[in-house]
């Protein structure tokens, strides 16, 4: 069978130059293939290395994620613990405050009890006398103020002087005669006498009525003190 080829094909129909060129081309391609293969191998190495690196990084990432999760868990635990500690602190502060208040109350009671249990005087006689002198001074001042204003009364006597029953009033019937003569000094004395009488009466109410028990206790106290003085 014969083919009609557009060119004459004969393996042995080419010249040596063509063959040499082709050989050189093959050699170059072979070298190129070798280079490419090396390059591929190199790239594969790099890929493998990168895969290793990626694996390492993934593991590192996982480790860090685990670490973060662990730390978050710890943070949550510590936050809860801090809240519990804060609650405990508040409770302790409240208890401390209550204890301090109780201590203050008990200390005050103890101080009061000491005052009650003490048989020594809280005040000196001189202090007491000073208080009574002040009282006398106030009595005098009120008597003087009233007398001075009474002297300024310009209207004539509008009523008859009230009759005095000396037994009904504990004060100064003799002075009343003087006062009726519009004697201001006598009036001052009379007012002082009246105030002194009322003051002593007020003070002596101490032993009366519901206070009788106090008087009894006071007498026993005095007697007890005197027995052992």
């Amino acid at each position, binding site marked *: 069978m014969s083919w009609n080829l557009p060119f004459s094909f004969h393996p042995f129909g080419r010249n040596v130059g063509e063959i040499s060129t082709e050989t050189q081309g093959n050699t170059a391609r072979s070298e190129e293939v070798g280079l490419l293969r090396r390059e591929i191998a190199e790239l594969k190495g790099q890929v493998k290395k990168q895969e290793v690196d990626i694996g390492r990084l993934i593991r590192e990432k996982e480790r860090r994620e685990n670490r973060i999760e662990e730390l978050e868990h710890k943070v949550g635990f510590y936050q809860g613990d801090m809240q519990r500690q804060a609650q405990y602190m508040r409770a302790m502060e409240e208890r401390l405050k209550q204890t301090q208040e109780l201590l203050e109350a008990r200390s005050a009671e103890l101080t009061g009890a000491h005052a*009650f249990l003490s048989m020594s005087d809280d005040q000196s006689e001189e202090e*007491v006398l000073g208080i009574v002198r002040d009282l006398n001074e106030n009595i005098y001042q009120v008597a003087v103020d009233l007398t001075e204003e009474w002297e300024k009364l310009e209207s004539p006597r509008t009523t008859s002087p009230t009759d005095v029953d*000396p037994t009904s009033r504990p004060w100064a019937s003799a002075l009343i005669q003087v006062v009726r*003569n519009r004697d201001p000094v006598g009036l001052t004395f009379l007012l*002082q006498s009246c105030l002194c009488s009322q003051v002593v009466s007020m003070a002596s109410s101490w032993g009366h009525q519901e206070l009788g028990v106090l008087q009894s206790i006071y007498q026993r106290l005095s007697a007890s003190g005197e027995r052992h003085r």
Partner: protein
Amino acid sequence: MSNSRLIEGQAISARWRSLAYSHFSRPPPDPTLLVEELAKVLDYTGYFSSTQPSVDFVRAVALEGIETIIRHTLRSESALKVGIVSSNMSLLFEAPGTVFDDTRMTNDFGPTSVPITEGQDRIAGTTEVGVGKSICRAGEIRYTEILLKAKVVLEKDVMAGS
């Protein structure tokens, strides 16, 4: 002092003081009583009428002073009964119309004191209250030591001045 005696004394003292504190912590009495008593004194002068009541006069002039007197009275009584528990101290007041006794003006007097009532001077009124301390040592008669003498006006002096 034996321990039991001391405890007895303390128990009485404690009860006394606690009751006394409660007594003196009560509000002071109303000044109305003092106002009315002073008004009655002024009524004796005859210068007041129903249209010009002496009570209003006293209130206008001396209410503040009267309230001060009440406060000082309670303060003095508190001092005498609570501040001093080692002895029995009290206010001294000479009743008008009674015979003046010189011995009561001495530093101390008691049942054994012989009254000196020469001339039978009578007391017209007490112008300043005094303070006395009752003392009774074992085996002795109780007597009063005068710490602050009460000041009195005698009737004879009033009459001489009038």
